[in-house]
């Protein structure tokens, strides 16, 4: 069992305020876990906000349900982990393509082809060590994990 060195959680209606609050609890997490290298904090924060924003922007509630955003952030020795839950959501169809297409090589094409959602998913993949998305009951669960020098 891995010892948890710092933890923060949030559960809110999946709206803009949830994203602002999530920034706040990430700031608090890094106050508790200041030993995590700055690059790891930056990369993990960016991936978590991208995944949560994806829930807020693209999550579809099941009929009769309110969509909630649940976040469980933990810092353990050598690992940062985020469980991001789309509670009361319809199943993801299709399941997001986390790899996405590589960026175009030509600057003009880069500008024309910029796809916010696809780029956000590619960023998550690049910023964490592992990312999974699965269905659990009425919830779509994203698990992001980044290896880190934290607590070593």
């Amino acid at each position: 069992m891995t010892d948890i060195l710092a933890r923060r959680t949030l559960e809110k209606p999946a709206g803009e305020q949830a994203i602002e609050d999530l920034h706040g609890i990430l700031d608090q997490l890094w106050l508790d876990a200041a030993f995590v290298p700055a690059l790891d904090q930056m990369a993990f924060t960016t991936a978590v906000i991208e995944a949560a924003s994806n829930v807020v922007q693209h999550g579809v509630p099941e009929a009769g349900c309110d969509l909630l955003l649940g976040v469980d952030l933990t810092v353990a020795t050598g690992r940062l982990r985020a469980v991001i839950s789309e509670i009361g959501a319809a199943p993801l169809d299709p399941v997001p393509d986390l790899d996405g297409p590589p960026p175009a090589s030509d600057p003009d094409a880069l500008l024309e082809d910029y796809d916010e959602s696809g780029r956000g998913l590619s960023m998550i993949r690049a910023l964490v060590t592992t990312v999974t998305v699965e269905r659990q009951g009425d919830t779509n669960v994203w698990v992001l994990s980044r290896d880190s020098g934290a607590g070593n």
Partner: protein
Amino acid sequence: MEFTTQDKGRYTEVSASGRLNMVAAPKLREVINEVVSGGGKRIVVNLADTSFMDSSGLGALIGCLKLARQSGGDLRIAAVQPQVNMVLELTSMHRVLTPHATPEEAFLND
């Protein structure tokens, strides 16, 4: 996020203070749209006080760049902080939105 707009003579500087995320992105589009509508051709977005940017914020900057170019102008960015630079490089967008060290330098050679 707070935006302030200043006419600097050779260019218009838009300073963005706070987090450029999915909440702030539409506000940036509004601010730049006003500058372009008011005849502003050369726009520098000063990111010295922008501590965070995600793909929504980057998408807004890209949209603003396209808008400025469509109206015969250009938009450049300056004073980017480490997290913003990381996002630009991860997405390869530093090749179309090349960061300048300071707002004054952004249009220095034009």
